[in-house]
């Protein structure tokens, strides 16, 4: 189950952060997202030479914590998407698919003429689209 989604801009400024749990873990989840930004920077600046995915947007599993798995995705415009989930047996392909749909929703939200680049995304439609994508993710990877 996805517990948290975040979009972080070029200057590490938060553009969108949304938790999907009922409990009050919001602060802990924000902290996890914040730490994962460092992991992303490290991965981008020191690419492993043997890694075939040096130019890919999808960064894969960033780091596993005690209960959560954190996945990262970096767009060409240096915007980072971070996904925190409690599922332990997630397929890579599902996460890639999720990020693809999320990227499309993000691009549409940014194309809104009332959106100011660099400020938070406040579109309700974006929030709804994201909830739909999150729900369908849970269904498709249910084992």
């Amino acid at each position, binding site marked *: 189950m996805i517990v948290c989604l975040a979009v972080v801009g*070029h200057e590490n400024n938060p553009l969108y952060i949304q938790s999907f749990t009922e409990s009050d873990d919001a602060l802990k989840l924000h902290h996890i997202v914040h730490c994962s930004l460092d992991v992303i920077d490290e991965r981008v600046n020191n690419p492993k030479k043997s890694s075939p995915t*040096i*130019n*890919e*947007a999808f960064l894969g599993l960033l780091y596993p914590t005690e209960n959560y798995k954190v996945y990262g995705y*970096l*767009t*060409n*415009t*240096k*915007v980072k998407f971070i996904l925190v989930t409690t599922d332990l047996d997630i397929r890579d392909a599902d996460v890639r698919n999720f990020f693809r749909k999320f*990227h*499309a929703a*993000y*691009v549409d939200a*940014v*194309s809104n*003429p009332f959106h*100011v*680049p660099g400020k938070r995304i406040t579109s309700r439609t974006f929030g709804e689209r994201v909830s739909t994508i999150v729900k369908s993710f849970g269904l498709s990877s249910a084992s």
Partner: protein
Amino acid sequence: MEGEVSESCVESLLAEIVLVVGHQFSERYTMDRPRFTDNLEAIKFICKDFWSELFKKQIDNLKTNHRGTFVLQDNRFRWLAHMSIDPSVQASGNIQDPSAMAENKSTQATGMHLYFPCGIIRRALSNLGIACAVSADISNLPACSFVIRIKA
């Protein structure tokens, strides 16, 4: 009657629009592509994909001095294709030369139409992480050259 808009006015009015539009274009058109490895890849993206999305054609000629300056030449720039040109002032069409410009209003007016494409290119490149300055050369309309100077 004061019908002319001063250049600095145009620039400031367009600056904000360019900021937003350039940002949106760059987000949308880089969506499905892998990350760029270096500046040349990003410039080639501008020449091919970006230009085809905006103008339905690719850049006709790309030159570089391998030291951070690129010249993109479009032989028939769509946004200026239907602009009438005064043949007598064809020789001094470079909009970066203010003294020559003061003498011909048509070139000046045409030059103002170039702020938007230059700005979009600059904004798209800065979104990809490349700080640069973009200027345009319209000495041979309808051909238009964009000069991109990457700030080191």
